[in-house]
């Protein structure tokens, strides 16, 4: 597969797309907190992969880490500030909550409801982090990469991966503590979208560079 990709075999790219588009899309979402932007990032990632096919090393396993590394770079150019991520995350959470309300009386499977809550929990956690921490955690946690693999995908030293992860961990710990303190059975996350001007959330998320 690596050789075929390197040689620019169109069929290899078609297979690569089928195998990895979904993963890249979800990875891009975690990095941007924006589903439509994630779609753009995914698409651009494969175009980039095609353009950079020369950089594929002949030896190695799945090309997925390589693609995710490209996707991370592409996503980075879209989201430079934490404020924008935060805004996008609350907009996405609002949108998920809205879906939930709309489908409340429809035949909602518990699984889908659960998925949305889980995605919102993920966004809430990722919102606490700075972009470099978020990138590393996303690769290691959801993509299951090892430290060295993540380091290679991002082109950074392994030590940097470690220190970013450790910062991420302590921030997540604070979040967990805060949640224990304010533990409620009812999820509170939708409150913000119903009250107040949730519109504050959108601008940066959707309008690109600020």
């Amino acid at each position, binding site marked *: 597969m690596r050789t075929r990709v390197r040689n620019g075999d*169109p069929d290899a790219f078609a297979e690569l797309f089928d195998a990895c588009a979904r993963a890249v899309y979800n990875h891009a979402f975690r990095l941007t907190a924006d589903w439509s932007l994630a779609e753009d990032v995914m698409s651009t990632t494969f175009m980039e992969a095609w353009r950079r096919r020369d950089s594929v090393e002949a030896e190695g396993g799945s090309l997925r880490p390589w693609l995710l590394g490209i996707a991370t770079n592409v996503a980075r150019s*879209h989201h*430079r500030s934490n404020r924008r991520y935060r*805004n996008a995350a609350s907009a996405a959470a609002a949108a998920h909550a809205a879906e939930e309300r709309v489908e409340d009386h429809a035949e909602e499977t518990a699984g889908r409801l659960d*998925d949305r809550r889980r995605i919102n929990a993920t966004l809430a956690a990722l919102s606490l982090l700075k972009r470099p921490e978020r990138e590393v955690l996303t690769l290691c946690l959801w993509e299951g990469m090892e430290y060295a693999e993540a380091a290679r995908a991002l082109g950074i030293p392994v030590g940097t991966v470690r220190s970013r992860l450790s910062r991420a961990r302590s921030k997540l710990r604070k979040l967990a503590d805060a949640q224990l303190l304010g533990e409620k059975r009812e999820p509170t996350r939708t409150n913000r979208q119903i009250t107040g001007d949730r519109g504050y959330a959108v601008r940066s998320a959707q309008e690109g560079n600020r």
Partner: protein
Amino acid sequence: MNASPSHRPHPAEWTETQSLLPSAERDLPAGRHQFHKEQMMARIHEDLRTTSRTSTASSRTSAASPVAPVKRSNPFLRRAILLPAAAFALAGAVVGGLALTGGGADDGKAALATGPALTTRIGAADPKGAPQLLERISLAAADTSAPTPRKGQYIYIASKVADSYVKSDGGKSEAVSNELHSRQVWNSLDGRDGWLIEAGETSDKGITLKSDVPFSGAYNALAGLPTDPDALLQRIYRASDANRDPEVPRDQAAFVAIGDLLFESYPPAEVGAALYKAAAKIPGVVSVDDAVDATGRHGVAIARQNDTDGERTEWIFDKKTLRFLGERIVVVKATAGDPLKVGTVTHTSAITERAVVDAAKQVPGQVS
């Protein structure tokens, strides 16, 4: 968790992440997988076709090099020229050649050139000067004759912007700024529809800003805001508290939120005036004797420093008319581990035009 002491536990083993696993993922929206796959394949075949035509060298080298002229463009956004070019492939080499060289540079989402990070002289801040300056700015804002848009019209804002960021390349990172580029935004009055054309972010054609969640600075939303500064400020705090980055101090978030309502929007005069009065009530807001907008216009500024990251957000106004010129963010205090040096301009913008137009993508003066 039960990780052995000899190895650092993987994030998947942390107790902190257990509530986040397993991951919930989504499929692409219906039809989009196929759509994007076709786009990619069209691009690949186009490249290969061009390659085999323009180069007689061995396939290995030719596969790599002829792609170079278009490498800066965003292929995703180039599909508009890509597909016609592919369709006319049989019509002759000239068509394809033109699309590649000319189109690659102009029609795609060309990546912006980056250079050394922008820096500036930091203007002197005066905490006592802010209330008075904002009072004058507010009066000037109240005095402007903002148009009343009709239903179905769009607010058009043109600006010049540039950003700085830390670029990482193979382990080393450096602060860079992208080139000053133009940005045009159209927003429907209800804030649910819009269009954006920004060099480096979108193609020349732009992208839709259609959204179920309305844009906070949309005209209708602004027109509905209270004009009593206290009530308005309370509302701002409530909204920004709901979305605020926990690391951004509360007052800073409110200040930034006001800026977001004011600048890439066209608020009714009395609302604009009230927003400035509300800003005057936020603790920590200062006046700055000199600041430069993205196009080099000097003015005075109203600013507030975020003590967490050491960056100061400055709203720049013309010294005489007190008309809003632009906004920028400047690093004024070094923070540990931040590669951005004091004096770095992390974001800068200058509003060049504000207008009400009849349709998205229509520029002022154009007849629909």
